[in-house]
């Protein structure tokens, strides 16, 4: 299998860390998600890539099938890999984890990508933008490269980060990890929030449990291994177009 990934931040970090935690062997191919290189891959026009709700995330190709969406790739790797399970064993615990990850990907991730792209704008040239198969992903690229960020959305995104950290702080009361044992929920939440510490400092102020948890996740061997692949000084400052901010209800 081949994993096309960007700098270890956001969904690329989540999939790389899971891959290492589960000792899955894959060819790692670096792509520059911040310049839209994903749209030059041979599988770029397949619906599962072009229409991925996650936006500019990694792509895992297994026996010719291109798979996207970091949480679901992580579930796949958890199924096929070795070592400790990264999901709770019982159905209720698994429900809790999938619900948690749904809230992260639907509410936190779009906000983080929006704020991240404003602070560290990705760049794609016009010729590359034309290759983007999804009209709505292309529209998000065009707005970001033109520097069009709405005040309402920026404020809403800050609120979403604040709410996510509040949830984590409450959840970590008397526990080390979000689901009891280290899981995909920790990896996915860390991957989207690590870069928010300098951008939304107010969200992390007075949140000692969250700060300690961030450091615990960061030094987990699989996460550290993923972060060691960084080519930039600060991979948490590497952003590309993320999931769409909820457009309806």
């Amino acid at each position, binding site marked *: 299998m081949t994993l096309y990934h960007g700098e270890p931040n956001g969904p690329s970090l989540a999939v790389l860390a899971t891959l290492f935690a589960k000792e899955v062997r894959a060819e790692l191919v670096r792509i520059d998600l911040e310049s839209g290189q994903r749209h030059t891959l041979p599988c770029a026009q397949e*619906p599962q890539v072009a229409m991925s709700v996650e936006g500019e995330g990694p792509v895992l190709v297994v026996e010719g099938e291109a798979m996207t*969406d970091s949480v679901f790739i992580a579930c*796949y790797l958890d199924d096929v890999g070795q070592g400790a399970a990264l999901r709770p064993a019982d159905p209720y615990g698994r429900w809790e984890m999938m619900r948690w990850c749904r809230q992260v990907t639907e509410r936190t991730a779009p906000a983080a990508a929006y704020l991240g792209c404003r602070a560290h704008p990705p760049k794609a040239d016009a010729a590359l933008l034309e290759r983007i198969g999804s009209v*709505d992903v292309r529209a998000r690229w065009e707005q970001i490269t033109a520097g069009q960020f709405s005040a309402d959305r920026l404020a809403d995104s800050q609120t979403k980060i604040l709410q996510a950290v509040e949830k984590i702080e409450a959840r970590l009361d008397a526990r080390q990890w979000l689901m009891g044992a280290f899981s995909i929920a920790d990896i996915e939440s860390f991957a989207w929030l690590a870069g928010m510490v300098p951008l939304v400092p107010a969200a992390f102020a007075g949140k000692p449990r969250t700060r300690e948890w961030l450091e615990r996740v960061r030094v987990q061997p699989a996460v550290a291994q993923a972060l060691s692949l960084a080519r930039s000084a600060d991979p948490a400052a590497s952003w590309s177009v993320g999931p769409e901010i909820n457009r*309806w*209800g």
Partner: protein
Amino acid sequence: MHSVTLYHWEPNANSGKPMLALMEKGVAFESRYLDLLNFDQHQPDYLAINPQGTIPAMLHGERVLTESTAIMEYVDEEFPGPRLMPEDPRDRWRVRWWMKLMDQWLGPSFSMIGWKVFVGPAVRSRDPGELKAAIERIPLPERRVAWRKAIYGQFSQEELKESRRRVALGIRILEQELAKRPWLASDQYSLADINGFNLAYALPLSQPALSNDELTPNTLRWLRAIYARPATKACWAMGRTSMVKRVTILEQPHIGPGQVT
């Protein structure tokens, strides 16, 4: 075994997903019908169960579960009965990928159109003061915006056009996918099919120019196959509004463009 109580609206969209999953598994449950059009979901007794005021919610003994797609996975894993997730890990990935596309990309566009033509007009004639108070009781800010737009007809032409574009594109990629295999995400009936049917069961009626036996034969085959299942028939019989009775369009043996009756 602990009892199961499901708080739901019509067998449609999010409510219909756990309803149909429970019925496919053969799990008996107590049905608590919430009338979405009467804002039952924002009343204090329901908010005590689900503070977000979204439908559905499921009680299993002491457990309270929300988020319809995550509930379906719980139902499949927790209860005996036919498995609704495939064994193969890659098939399972495909099930989840399709459910997310439908939940977060295609579904909201269908829903916007549905709320404009059905939900908004159904409640608009009520007392203006009552409606205003009802909107103010909605816990989630994004749901308040959604209801306000539906009730006061505030959808912009631009956002409706975008929803129509997504519906048309979604119909095309569903058809392409269903040409590859009997069911949406694998060779066995799965949660992806349950999810998809809840979104698309009335497609040949609501989008006759885009979805019919000539343009989307695989989609029509798929919808009819799901409708033929006893659990689906029993589930849709629980519907109370004209909206869900549209499912009977699938009893027509052939639906051509413009032939919808």
